[in-house]
């Protein structure tokens, strides 16, 4: 549940989600759920010339299982806090 909690802190930020079919979609993170399904608002596909498949889509839901990377805005991750939280969870502290 650690990364679920972490992604919840990013709601409202601008992110780019790279999918396992090489499509990359950027937009404002609207919500995330326990499966790390992601909902983006005001989406833009990177390289619209090559990928015009979502030209009329402005909001989308991305299934967590097809996400390869999530590119985050600089400074949105406090590595120290994430380190501590990771260790706490590994100890079973939650």
């Amino acid at each position: 549940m650690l990364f679920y909690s972490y992604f919840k802190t990013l709601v409202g930020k601008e992110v780019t989600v790279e999918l396992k079919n090489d499509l990359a979609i950027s937009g404002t993170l609207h919500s995330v759920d326990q499966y790390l399904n992601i909902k983006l608002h005001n989406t833009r596909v990177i390289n619209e010339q090559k990928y015009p498949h979502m030209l009329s889509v402005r909001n989308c839901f991305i299934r967590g299982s097809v996400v390869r990377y999530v590119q985050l805005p600089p400074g949105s991750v406090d590595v120290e806090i994430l380190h501590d939280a990771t260790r706490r969870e590994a100890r079973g502290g939650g």
Partner: protein
Amino acid sequence: MADSALAGLIDTTISVITADGRNIVGVLRGYDQATNLILDECHERVFSTKNGVEQLALGLYVIRGDNIAVVGEIDDELDAQIDFSQVRAAPLKAVTH
């Protein structure tokens, strides 16, 4: 939650990109926690580099969640502005896990 993420899309037109790279457009009638979808009045948009986008009528579909990559909310105004007969693009790749 997954429920609230798709709840707002019930009875609206959505575009589903499947794991095998197909693009299916239809009206969302139902879904569950595994992202299985019920799509009414579907058509598939077939992209090709040689011809414009071809639309194939499909009818009522149930799409298994495993096979779903993206569910996009279609903006009807934007959609109406696009001349799909002029859109040329290679089909999307399949999802590789």
